[in-house]
């Protein structure tokens, strides 16, 4: 036991004396969360629009006021001529043009129906979609307010509501994903580098010719990073809650337990990588290329898995990150508990055990 503690002490010395890895360990996660949270956003704010009001009556004026008053849109110009629409888009500044048809108020009163054409620049489909939705919801609200005193007319209009994330706040989408990626990268990369560093420097030779057992070395390398990754996870969650106002609907304890499970999973993956790498560079490359890319692309972090071709969907099943993101979103956004998430949890546990067993088997007790 003393042997083990001596080993862990040494690992902590290494970590805290290497300023570069400290930076990666703590600086990177914070930087990434801030970056994803603030800079990359699916929300829209101050989107430039143009308005083509063919009626110019009281109703259209009211609607236009409502639209421009919202923080989402900024009315840059009024168009007076249909031909201008295309040129305005080509310039690139305007993302949407709203066209109110002629005799808007009259049509609304007489026929109970008037159309507003929303033409969006779909070169960025995400933004186009969101613009569409926002305008529609503003129009809905207006209709509800003004039709209060009028006899209800049965209009079956599709109502779209974004559940759990009504404003489509991208932060809610990104935080679980970013947290997963950071925990995975930092844990896996750091452990794999730590072990291969010993191989590269030659200290592994001395460790081998000593009474310390392989599993003690492996666990001794993993334990410090468990502590540090937990700190990372806590920091990310705190940042999300306080700066980005992300809710945590479900149990914080369950969140903590699941995070530790995922951290151990990522750490054991790091150990596995170190058994097949001889140099730190190789370990780092495998961690980045072999882990980060598949995780970003196939975990459901940015691109929905259901829209991928079937072979890729199957592959995504073996990516631990995918299951953890489901768990995170479940706990943070939906507030569900272990009764719903047991399947994903079990899968993560099974994967972790598999990695650990494989690592112990592949750990070389000799130099060849």
């Amino acid at each position: 036991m003393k042997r083990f503690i001596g080993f862990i002490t040494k690992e902590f010395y290494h970590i805290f004396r290497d300023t570069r890895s400290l930076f990666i360990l703590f600086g990177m996660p914070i930087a990434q969360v801030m970056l994803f949270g603030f800079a990359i956003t699916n929300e829209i704010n101050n989107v430039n629009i143009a308005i083509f009001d063919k009626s110019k009556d009281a109703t259209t004026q009211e609607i236009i006021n409502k639209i421009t008053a919202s923080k989402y849109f900024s009315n840059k110009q009024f168009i007076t001529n249909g031909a201008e629409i295309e040129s305005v888009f080509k310039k690139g500044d305007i993302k949407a043009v709203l066209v109110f048809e002629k005799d808007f108020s009259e049509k609304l009163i007489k026929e109970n129906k008037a159309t507003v054409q929303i033409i969006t620049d779909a070169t960025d489909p995400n933004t186009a979609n969101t613009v569409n939705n926002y305008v529609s919801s503003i129009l809905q609200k207006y209709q509800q307010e003004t039709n209060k005193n009028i006899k209800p007319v049965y209009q079956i209009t599709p109502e779209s509501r974004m559940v759990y994330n009504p404003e489509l706040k991208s932060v809610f989408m990104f935080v679980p994903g970013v947290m997963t990626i950071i925990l995975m990268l930092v844990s896996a990369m750091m452990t794999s580098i730590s072990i291969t560093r010993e191989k590269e420097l030659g200290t592994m030779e001395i460790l081998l010719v000593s009474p310390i057992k392989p599993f003690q070395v492996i666990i001794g390398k993993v334990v410090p990073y468990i502590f540090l990754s937990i700190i990372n996870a806590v920091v990310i969650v705190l940042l999300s809650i306080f700066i980005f106002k992300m809710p945590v609907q479900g149990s914080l304890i369950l969140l903590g337990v699941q995070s530790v499970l995922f951290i151990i999973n990522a750490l054991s993956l790091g150990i596995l990588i170190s058994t097949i790498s001889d140099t730190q560079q190789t370990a780092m490359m495998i961690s980045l290329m072999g882990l980060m890319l598949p995780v970003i692309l196939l975990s459901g972090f940015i691109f929905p898995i259901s829209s991928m071709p079937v072979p890729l969907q199957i592959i995504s099943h073996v990516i631990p990150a995918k299951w953890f993101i489901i768990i995170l979103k479940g706990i943070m956004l939906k507030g569900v508990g272990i009764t719903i998430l047991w399947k994903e949890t079990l899968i993560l546990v099974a994967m972790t055990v598999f990695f650990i067993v494989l690592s112990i088997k592949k750990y070389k007790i000799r130099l060849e």
Partner: protein
Amino acid sequence: MSITIKHISKSFKDVIALKDISFNVNEGELFGLIGPDGAGKTTLFRILTTLLIADEGTATVANYDVVKNYKDIRNHVGYMPGRFSLYQDLTVEENLTFFATIFGTTIEENYDLIKDIYVQIEPFKNRRAGDLSGGMKQKLALSCALIHKPKVLFLDEPTTGVDPVSRKEFWEMLKRLQQKGITILVSTPYMDEAALCDRIALIQNGKILQIDTPEEIVKHYPKAIYDVAASNMYELIISLNEYQYNHSVYPFGEFVHYTDKRDDFNPEGLLKYLEGKGLKNIVIQPTKTTIEDTFMELAK
């Protein structure tokens, strides 16, 4: 018998690192493995410390088989690999404490064993190992290898790249350790260090050239060696190389070690030849054979 090696062979891809190596090291002996880079010294050390498995042959260390009982060997030997293999970012004291703990002991327990060595680096005990000079690093590495009082000590080129003063001090430490009953197997490319061992094995290209005490090895050198000097070393070497009766011509410091093909060699003939070549201040005198002479003769 502290170390037994029987017909060990080892190859890597197409390179034969060791070919049919056999010898023994007695308990308490200071045994030198002498040979240049690429001779196979490190490979042999790795096989004996259980880090590699030989292709053929068997070996035991402290009566434990290197393959079957590798765990026992790993608990009982001290090992200093070729490069400096301690933790550069830990201090002297932290390194020592770490290795003591790994071996289940403390610095205090075996302090008397390392005291002579450690007092020299103790003033620097809070300095990071990476910031020590070459000689200090070797002393620290030696201390760490001894901290658990091993029965057998393996030192792979411990003095390579270290200046002559530190080298001398290191070997003095080894002699003192030997008196405490530890078997020491050292490898080195420095032939002058060979003379300090009880017995030596000369190794080149994976083969053992000869094994014996330094004195005996030198005695068996077949020819008489002469120191030859002249005012211009370069011209002297060329002239000697052109001399039809030469057997070997090797510069050795300010002299050239010359051996002749003939058994009835008379220096007078050589003197005349060299004078004929225009060399001045010629000196030809018999000289003592060194291990290096023997090595080169065997390696030819």
